[in-house]
């Protein structure tokens, strides 16, 4: 967790140093997109290669999907009032 933040801060410093280079900025955007694609492939592979998860999917799949939807939308709705406050503060 700490090393993830270190990479993030190194990135900010690099960004400040190279902020006038439009080309670098564009390349970084592109590479980020590709890295996200690879990450999704790996997320899928982690789920697909988990034998006990795949075998039990018929019995627990529905529960897990519904719980994921419940927790996710609960969080989105609970933070909804905050979003307008944050938007106002950042103006």
């Amino acid at each position, binding site marked *: 967790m700490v090393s993830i933040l270190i990479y*993030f801060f190194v990135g900010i410093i690099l960004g400040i140093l190279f902020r006038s280079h439009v080309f670098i900025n564009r390349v970084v955007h592109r590479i980020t997109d590709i890295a996200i694609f690879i990450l999704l492939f790996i997320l899928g592979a982690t789920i697909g290669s988990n034998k006990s998860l795949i075998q039990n999917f018929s019995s627990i799949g529905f529960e897990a*999907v519904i719980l994921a939807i419940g927790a996710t939308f609960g969080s989105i709705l609970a933070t909804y009032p905050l979003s307008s*406050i944050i938007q106002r503060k950042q103006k």
Partner: protein
Amino acid sequence: MKNGLIMTGMFVAGICAGWVGLLPNWIINGNFKLYLLFALMLFVGIQLGCDIDVLRKVLRLNFIVLLVPVCVIIGSLLGSGFISLILNEISLKESLAVGSGLGFYSMSSILITQLSGEKLGIVALLANSLREVMTVLLAPIFVRYFGNLAPVASGGATSMDVSLPVIQKYSGGDYVIVAIVNGLVLTLVAPLLIWLILS
């Protein structure tokens, strides 16, 4: 839209490849994913550093940022608690424990397996992985209907790493620090919540 289709395709291809067993072990269990995350964090940082204005805006937010993880926790518990009323197979306590994973699937599945058993552990693994996948795939839709903060909330603990690049892309650079603070707090709170609920 085009990116969304490619991402969904990559995710499905990953499931198939993993299921068939095509992939070498280092991709699934090795450090490959970690290095990819490091690279992504570096890129997100670079994009943020390029935009000085965003950094200034973020400093104006102060304590409100801390209210975000508090609301995310309350929302997750209410949401998963509500689901237990609909589903007969799962008790209130069990569904609250799964909801307390807050997207942190690796930790929550291991901890829940130890405290409650393998079946609920697998439910927690799948439900919390899906939360992460939903955030990455549906971020633009969440932003459109629920505002810029929505992917931060749906990402939960993953808003500081896996979900961060899509948050930056669709919510904007202004939300990167909010997302990191949210992810850090939730990563620390999730194991504690699970333990409190199940013990």
